[in-house]
């Protein structure tokens, strides 16, 4: 297992700077997720870790040793690609055994390890099949077995679940997580799916345009997003964001005054739909749309500050469309961002209008 350090890692393709300079520490045995939208440099970081790409600048360290010049084949890293990248002409057995070929593993031991790895991900019965004869979920398990069979010091997962259907994704999430717990292998998951990141990873690294926007536990990113970008990216349904001008302990949002603490100047207020409630007093509005989501009901409320999303627990809608409501919230859960720097203003809160 390995401890990973990025020291000012940069990556350019010609004139395009994908990663301007990245610093990052990942502890031994940790499960981290690189989360961000397409093109934010997360997959590039993964390929740098795998040794497929060479960094254009900076140092990459495994357990304190610089591995910049260590070739991919000598890094002892396991990787699962989004497309699984199984070798199409080989059987499942040969696919899983492939990494062992190059480690000069004795035949008996190789067979034993292939069987173990296959059993671990429950593909023991499929060993004689070709990848084209497997379903997507089975291919994914085989790819995982191939990555694990060499007992890698680092496991890299590149969007491993995005080609699976919703049910399968849910169960694979749990399986991968428990497998990682069991093996204790340092694991880096690349994903653009915030649910995947928050459910599987110990720590999330939220990236934007090649830069790390915030590092923290799923709760950190959810409760205290350091910037507007993180606040907008994490959470589903998305956070309500409204612009306002703050002065004299009041924020003026489209003419509606919200009492506020610690805010000044041009700001953006963030209110998560699940933190909003229908109350006796608060922001008045009218329910425009109702979206039942299973365990919750999402109300879209038309107010003077625009449409506001409110999420209510329970499978049955307690309110009807067109109904007049007042929206309240716990001031401690409100988020206030500086509109120009887009950073969170610590200690600043807003209260519902009286």
């Amino acid at each position, binding site marked *: 297992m390995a401890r990973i350090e990025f020291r000012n890692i940069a990556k350019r393709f010609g004139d395009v700077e994908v990663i301007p300079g990245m610093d990052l520490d990942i502890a031994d045995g940790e499960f981290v997720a690189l989360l961000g939208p397409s093109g934010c440099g997360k997959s590039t970081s993964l390929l740098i870790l*795998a040794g*497929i790409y060479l960094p254009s600048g900076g140092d990459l360290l495994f357990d304190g040793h610089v591995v910049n010049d260590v070739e991919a084949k000598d890094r002892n890293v396991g990787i699962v690609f989004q497309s699984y*990248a199984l070798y199409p002409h080989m059987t499942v057995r040969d696919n899983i055994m492939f990494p062992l070929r*190059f480690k000069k593993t004795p035949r008996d031991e190789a067979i034993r390890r292939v069987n173990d790895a296959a059993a671990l991900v429950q593909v023991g019965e499929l060993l004689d099949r070709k990848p084209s*004869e497997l379903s997507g979920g089975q291919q994914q398990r085989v790819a995982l077995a191939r990555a694990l069979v060499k007992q890698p010091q680092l496991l890299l997962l590149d969007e491993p679940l995005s080609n699976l259907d919703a049910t399968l994704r849910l169960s694979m999430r749990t399986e991968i997580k428990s497998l990682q717990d069991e093996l204790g292998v340092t694991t880096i998951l690349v994903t653009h799916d915030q649910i995947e990141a928050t459910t599987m990873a110990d720590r999330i690294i939220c990236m934007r345009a090649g830069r790390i926007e915030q590092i923290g536990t799923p709760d950190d990113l959810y409760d205290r997003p350091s910037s507007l970008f993180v606040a907008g990216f994490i959470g589903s349904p998305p956070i309500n964001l409204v612009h306002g001008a703050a002065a004299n302990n009041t924020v003026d949002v489209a003419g509606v005054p919200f009492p506020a603490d610690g805010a000044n100047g041009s700001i953006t207020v963030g209110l998560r739909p699940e933190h909003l409630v229908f109350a006796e007093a608060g922001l008045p509005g009218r329910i425009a749309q109702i979206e039942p989501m299973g365990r919750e009901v999402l109300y879209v409320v038309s107010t003077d500050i625009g449409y506001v999303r409110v999420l209510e627990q329970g499978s049955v809608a307690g309110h009807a469309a067109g109904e007049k409501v007042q929206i309240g919230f716990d001031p401690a859960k409100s988020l206030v961002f500086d509109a120009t720097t887009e950073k969170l203003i610590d200690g600043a809160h807003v209260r519902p209008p009286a």
Partner: protein
Amino acid sequence: MSAIADDLRRERAGPGRQRNRRRANFVIFLGPAIVLTILFFVIPVIIDVVVSFTDMGRSLQITGFTTEQYEKIFGGDRRLVQVIGLTLLYVFATLAIFNLTFALVLALVTTATNRMTGNFFRGVWLLPRMSPSVLYILLWVWVINPSEFGLLNQILMSVLGLETPIDPLNEAPVMLIIIANGFIGASMGMIIFTSAIRAIPEHLFHAARVDGAGSMAIIRHITLPALRWPISFVTIYQTLSLLVSFEYILLLTEGGPFYDTTVYALYIFRRAFDTGQYAYGAALAVFIIALGVFFALLGWRFFDMQKLLQRPRIEVQ
């Protein structure tokens, strides 16, 4: 196999209107190919077979039907054994050394370098194929010129310090026709293999590198298996085209010195058009047709090309 046949049969049957439409489709899609095949293959073969049973000579007159041409092939023509031996050597050496191996090397090298360089190099390598045969051979004639002004001799003498110029046309004529044909023949395999290599998903190469494979292991375990069908196709196709093509040899050596580079196809040409034995040429041609069909079927079987026609058993994703 039988399951697929059943499927097809079930598909072919069906209500009358559908059957009519199928018939119309058959005519529309296969009609042109069938017409061309009949016009340029079946009819010429029939004419050839008929002529082979006559005594047509330089005067182009037929005075009677006879089997003497075949008797000549199986008894009288002592040169034939040597011609057949040379043909097999020429076809398989050119195929193995250039049209497959060298083409593969070209494809691997030009896809491994950066895209611009690779494209440029392949473009250059295709030039002779795009230019007229006469021009290509004219260049060869200059290259192998036996005086000290030939390109080959200039290089050998000035760079390697050879004392007297060599004359490849007389000293190594078979090697010469193999190289001259191979250089141009390799370009086809190169193009086909290149596109096949490009079609391999990049993730497979990445996965193999991470799995510990070096460059050679990647070629062996990832690239070559993906080229199985292109290699099969190029082998069969080029065997047939080498078997019947002789224009470069005719232009370069005229089949000489003496009969040293006269391959079977050229032998037919020389017999029919040089010495005016049209009927004998036709009889010889019957065997090259048979040989072509034989090699095509052999290749089809050997490479299990039938598999290409099978339907996928499972939808992926």
